């Protein structure tokens, strides 16, 4: 009876602490469980201030200074937190038109964002406009499927970054939407677009096998879902493996809760997107243990 109870509780909560005699015998077998929190925004579009109280859809919602309060509260709860943005930081209020994105980047730096990917609107003042604002961003920009080699951004954008939180290696890589037809050529210039799915497969393999990441997060500005063949987060999820979480943007999708999709080998992968304009922040909590279950496919997902 006692043993049965034990199995149930580990299966449910993954708690390996308190294994008792078994734990004492095996030298370091029962390593302590870990808790990593991922916070994310997308398509904030220069919405630094909250919406007016009389706004039809989002009265009084949003605002960078309130978002920061919430972020700080969550960091106090769990210091092992990553804060990410899925692009389209720029464009949407006069703050962008007057300051070119300077204030957006400065505020995100003060809030201690860990990384962001690039959205199509982040090219709105041209690739030179983005470069000019980069010194205000104290966090890396991450994208793996744009080749910037023949542009002013050469060497400034990383395909991925590995973060370590409480000893857990978290690989974050970025993918962006096809710019042709969406952004004027004179703005993106010689930026080359590569297929995000092929890129993701290569990078994920590298993150898992070489970088030994225990969590892999895709920061995407592809869009949640399309009726046609256009690559989306849903398509990316279904065509790849070993990704735990896709944080999306571009389609300004409000999801009632994160989507649990199935990847190429039938394992679960989470997709989340939180609308736009900073009216929401997404929160994903990963509870990890060393019970040997293989990534998100074996985890209990509670959304």
């Amino acid at each position: 009876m006692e043993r049965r109870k034990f199995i149930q509780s580990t299966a449910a909560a993954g708690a390996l602490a308190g294994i008792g005699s078994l734990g004492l015998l095996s030298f370091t077998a029962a390593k302590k469980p870990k808790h990593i929190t991922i916070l994310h925004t997308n398509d904030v579009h220069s919405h630094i201030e909250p919406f007016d109280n009389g706004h039809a859809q989002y009265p009084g919602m949003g605002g960078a200074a309130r978002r920061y309060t919430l972020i700080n509260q969550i960091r106090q709860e769990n210091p092992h937190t990553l804060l990410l943005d899925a692009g389209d930081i720029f464009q949407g209020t006069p703050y962008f038109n007057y300051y070119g994105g300077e204030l957006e980047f400065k505020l995100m730096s003060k809030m201690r964002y860990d990384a962001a990917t690039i959205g199509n609107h982040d090219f709105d003042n041209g690739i030179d406009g983005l470069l000019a604002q980069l010194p205000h961003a104290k966090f890396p920009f991450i994208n793996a499927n744009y080749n910037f080699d023949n542009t002013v951004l050469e060497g400034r954008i990383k395909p991925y970054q590995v973060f370590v939180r409480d000893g857990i290696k978290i690989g974050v890589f970025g993918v962006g939407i096809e710019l042709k037809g969406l952004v004027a050529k004179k703005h993106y210039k010689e930026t080359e677009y590569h297929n995000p799915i092929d890129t993701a497969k290569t990078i994920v393999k590298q993150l898992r096998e070489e970088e030994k990441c225990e969590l892999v997060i895709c920061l995407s500005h592809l869009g949640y879902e399309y009726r046609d063949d256009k690559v989306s987060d849903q398509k990316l999820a279904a065509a790849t493996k070993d990704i735990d979480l896709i944080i999306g943007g571009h389609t300004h999708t409000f999801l009632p809760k994160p989507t649990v999709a199935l990847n190429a080998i039938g394992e679960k992968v989470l997709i989340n997107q939180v609308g736009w304009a900073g009216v929401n922040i997404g929160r994903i909590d990963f509870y990890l243990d060393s019970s040997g279950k293989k990534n998100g496919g074996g985890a209990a997902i509670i959304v």
Partner: protein
Amino acid sequence: MKRYLLFLLLTAGACKFNDNYTPARIEGKQLEITPDIPANDSLENFITPYKEHINKEMEEVLAYLPYNLSKSDGRYNTAIGNLMADALIELSNPIFNKRTGENIDIVLLNYGGIRSSIAKGDVTTRSAFQVMPFENEVVVAALKGEAVREMIHYLIDSGTAHPVAGIELQLEKDNSIKKVLIQGKPLEDSATYYVATNDYLLEGGDSMNFFLKAEEATNLDYKIRNLLIDYFKAKDTLNPVRDQRFIKVE
């Protein structure tokens, strides 16, 4: 003794396996940034000077408008759309003419690009930002008469009050063309027309595929929002009206 050894092997195996942390449980949710969350003071204070500067700029009065303008006040053309199209031809043509020696014949924007109404009273910089929040620029496309004919059919098929200037298009009840004139003259298939629009539409946005047939395009490096601001500044009072440029005979 044997049993003990086996147990050690097992635990050693488990140990190796245990090097990898994997997610056992994942929880996801969305948190709303609601008005009852207090603003972080240091961030708020940092924003203040930027905010004050912008508010000062935004409240600058540029012109006076005696009545409300809304893009839903007409079926095939609207006063606000006509204002935008007329402003575009009036302020862009001198620049275009100086650069190329040619003149703009037609203006076509998209209905969806009118992002806000304008309330009667003082028209401010903020009004221009609300109507045109995007960074789109004026471009002039050289289109053959055949492509302009496609454009006319696009207007007819969409049945939408896309802002136009320089053309007169009247439809019969059955949507057949009663009259079409460009700069007061009949459309000639072989002639070249200079059509002013924005860079988004030039690249085929809103399914305006006829723009992809442009023989040439000139970017005037003039943001439509700035053009509107300049236009408002130049006028003391705005009084745009709905007219006969695109109508259906009832």
